[in-house]
């Protein structure tokens, strides 16, 4: 492997073109590995959304509970927790890359869009589940590309396919079951793979 120590010799030493090139490529390679691989958000949101979907499915199918959608309010503390975690991580990180900023911008934009669709759910015939599942696919895929992690890209494709299936199923409690499966395959499975990769 390229040894960093070898070129941190004295300042006055003459560098050959090849040595210069080695320093440049070596350092760029070092910096490239600095994009944070953050499985935290995939695991947090994966579990929150899967459990909420399953709870809504169970409440609709097996009980007469009048307001099953109240379960979704668990996303509020999850969002607050995500923001706190993000700020804390940002303070801890010693290097900030442009790709991380792009990634954060895409996910924040996705969050705002989700929130908008939830507020105006009635306008889209309450097809929130398929819409959000399909929308999830894009930032997940982009994250996979940024950190060069194929399982996330495959997860994104799964999200898209199951989102489409959710449209096909139409307005029924089955949409919640499909979403739970989609998020398990699209977030949790790649999320845990990413975590074992980080360690």
């Amino acid at each position, binding site marked *: 492997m390229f040894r*960093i*120590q070898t*070129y*941190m*010799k004295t*300042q006055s*030493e*003459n*560098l050959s*073109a*090849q*040595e*210069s*090139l080695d*320093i*440049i490529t*070596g*350092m*760029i390679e*070092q*910096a*490239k590995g*600095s994009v944070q691989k953050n499985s935290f958000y995939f695991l947090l949101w994966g579990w929150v959304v899967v459990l909420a979907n399953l709870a809504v499915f169970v409440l609709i199918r097996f009980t007469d509970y009048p307001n099953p959608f109240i379960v979704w309010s668990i996303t509020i503390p999850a969002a607050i927790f995500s923001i706190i975690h993000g700020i804390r991580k940002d*303070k801890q990180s*010693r*290097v*900030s*890359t*442009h790709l*991380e*900023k792009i990634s954060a911008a895409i996910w924040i934009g996705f969050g705002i869009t989700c929130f908008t669709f939830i507020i105006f759910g009635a306008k889209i015939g309450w097809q929130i589940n398929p819409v959000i599942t399909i929308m999830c696919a894009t930032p997940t895929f982009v994250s996979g590309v940024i950190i060069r992690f194929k399982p996330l890209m495959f997860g994104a494709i799964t999200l898209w396919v199951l989102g489409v299936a959710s449209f096909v199923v139409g307005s029924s409690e089955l949409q919640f079951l499909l979403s739970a499966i989609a998020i398990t395959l699209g977030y949790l499975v790649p999320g845990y793979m990413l975590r074992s990769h980080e360690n």
Partner: protein
Amino acid sequence: MFNDLDPLLHSQLRLAVMSLLISVESAEFTFLKEKTNSTAGNLSVQLDKLSEASYITIEKGFKGKKPLTTCKITPKGIKAFEDYVNNLKQYINK
């Protein structure tokens, strides 16, 4: 040889720092120190030289109670780095 190579960049540590900074948005002193495997004193001197030439900006602040130095490459620094690489290419192609 290497007459038209920017002398400010044609130094091991300064070139290493610039190569790191060209790849990231900003980096802390400790990150640069670790990646270049340099001593704090030497790194600090070289950063000042780059900063004097306006190739980088150095921001000093605090993270909690610890002093924090954050470095960023400037457009002038990016241009100098690109010129350096282009000149280097000519030497290699010769």
